[in-house]
């Protein structure tokens, strides 16, 4: 019984409490000074994972243990959570109220009902079906070895043999270590956590992020939003037109970093670019001189974009390429539309972590060995 309570508490802590508390601040400004529950969770989820990436890579490079990583990441997230609580306490009571969807008609309710039924069906399938993927031997093997031995990436997950060399191909994208920290704290087998519990959060979260974009798309016709969401679930269920699609990854490899980058990181970057585009347009319209200003919304969006980029790197080495490509394309489009070079300059700021990790990747061993040598001196 105590073990079950521990599992539930730690799972809620990582998948509920941390994302909600850390997401309060950016969500308030991105959501036009309204606290929208889905937006808060989504923002916090990326802040949590983005924040985790930094201690994770440091602990791995300096060969610290899983216990070190757990303590440091917990402290970091607790600090960010306390910041969120303080921020909330500083607000007036009416500003603290959660903002929910407006009243809906009968048809809209019915359509949302269908969407949630389809979503539950998708989640049940992900729990009931086994989708074998060869890469799990590495990712989930690494997580399991980290819990078993306490060492991060120092055991070859394929053979279970200790090794001296770090695996430079994977250590800068240590999402399996996030699974290891959670699994270790919960006292649950990491494979059960990854295959059964995480999809119950990650699948709805992916749709929630697309839903945020949908809200902007259908501002004028909000009754079309549930239709959009239903179509998205259907497209996901029937999206296995090749083994490479993001939909195949969402259902078949939900717990892998690659799936998270395809189904959460890139959609969130897409949403933030949409928000920024909208915000820049509003500034042009609302200010008497039509000049762009550094607003709270812009700063919050850019900061969150930085966290999204870090999450991308945490999930896959492809994060160094995919998120910058997507963001730069949209930044250029916004800049051209608004005829403002400032947009591109602002858009480059969240790419700083990508540039740092990109350098580490490109120079691979050279840089890391240099850092290690500096540490030993």
């Amino acid at each position, binding site marked *: 019984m105590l073990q079950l309570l521990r599992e539930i508490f730690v799972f809620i802590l990582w998948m509920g409490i941390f994302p909600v508390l850390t997401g309060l601040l950016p969500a308030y400004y991105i959501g036009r000074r309204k606290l929208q529950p889905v937006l808060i969770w989504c923002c916090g989820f990326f802040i949590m994972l983005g924040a985790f990436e930094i201690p994770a890579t440091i602990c791995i490079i300096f060969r610290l243990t899983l216990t070190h990583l757990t303590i440091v990441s917990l402290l970091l997230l607790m600090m960010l959570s306390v910041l969120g609580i303080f921020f909330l306490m500083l607000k007036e009571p009416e500003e603290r109220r959660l903002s929910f969807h407006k009243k809906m008609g009968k048809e809209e309710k019915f359509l949302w009902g269908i969407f949630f039924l389809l979503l539950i069906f998708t989640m049940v399938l992900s729990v*009931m079906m086994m989708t074998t993927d*060869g890469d799990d031997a590495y990712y989930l093997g690494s997580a399991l070895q980290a819990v078993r031995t306490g060492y991060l990436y120092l055991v070859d997950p394929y053979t279970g043999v200790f090794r001296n060399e770090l695996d430079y191909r994977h250590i800068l994208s240590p999402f399996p270590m996030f699974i290891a920290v959670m699994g270790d704290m919960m006292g649950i087998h990491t494979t059960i956590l990854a295959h059964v519990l995480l999809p119950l959060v990650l699948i709805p979260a992916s749709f929630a992020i697309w839903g945020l974009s949908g809200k902007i798309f259908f501002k004028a016709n909000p009754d079309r939003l549930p239709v959009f969401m239903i*179509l998205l679930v259907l497209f996901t269920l029937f999206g296995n037109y090749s083994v490479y699609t993001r939909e195949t990854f969402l259902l078949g490899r939900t717990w892998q970093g690659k799936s998270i980058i395809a189904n959460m990181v890139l959609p969130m970057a897409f949403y933030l670019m949409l928000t920024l585009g909208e915000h820049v347009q509003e500034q042009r319209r609302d200010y008497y001189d039509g000049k762009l200003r550094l607003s709270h919304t812009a700063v919050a969006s850019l900061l969150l974009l930085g966290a999204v980029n870090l999450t991308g790197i945490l999930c896959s080495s492809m994060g160094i390429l*995919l998120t910058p490509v997507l963001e730069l394309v949209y930044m250029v489009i916004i800049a051209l539309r608004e005829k403002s070079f400032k947009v591109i300059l602002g858009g480059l700021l969240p790419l700083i972590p990508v540039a740092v990790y990109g350098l580490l990747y490109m120079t691979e061993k050279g840089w890391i060995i240099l850092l290690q040598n500096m540490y030993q001196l």
Partner: protein
Amino acid sequence: MVATALEVMKNYANYSGSGVMPLLFFASLFFVALTEKDKVVRGTMLYGSVALIAINFFVPLYYVYSRLIDASTYWRLWWTVPIGCGLAYAAANVIGEHKKVGLLLALLVMILGGDFLYTKKNVNGEIRPAENIYQIPQQVMDIVDAIKLSGEGTHIKAAFPGEMLVYIPQYDGDIEMPYGREMLDPNWHNGVSGFYMLMNDDVVNFQELKPKCVQNDTRFIVVNAHKLKVDEPEDWDFELLYSFEDYQVYEQKEIYNIQEEYRWRE
């Protein structure tokens, strides 16, 4: 240059499968171009998507990518294009007020043009109902549990057939293996282990397996029960420990004796 361009097209063909869904997405973009008035949505959905598609088809990028990174992962750039979102957006607008009929029609299009993941027989691995909460074949777990029981208190090293290599590291990290899943992955060393080649052979040859076990300190081997055995396991110091539906677990007695001797000394 032409060869690289063909590679880019092949990459797209691999990603798009039958091609129906991406074609519908291109049609959606056309629809957005004709109907969308909102500048922000138009910029994000139409111009953004077109630019990202152009980047995917940009031959010099593929050339640089294939040389600096890895051509076999270039298809991941397609993840930046919001195919599902664009399709759903255009379809929701086409459907408009005729929601029920429209959704049924959309479902029909998805069934005909798409593919349902869970009915696929073999897509990059096995897809079937889970037998347990680990989502790992029960037989594999039973075999690992049996080996751990027999090797309790000792350093356990076991050799498994190729089809099990993906599951063992996910289920139990205590068991060492002389070779791992890298044998199945072309990105790694792909089958350079002589031990694996013997284990993966069509027949079981205990005479040849014995020196491999001794050299690699491997006490247990798991072989497919339906494979033809060219010699008697007992002749080469192998003892049958467990028989499962499709597999048999053998213990190499020479390794066992050495391990026992060390234990006794300690």
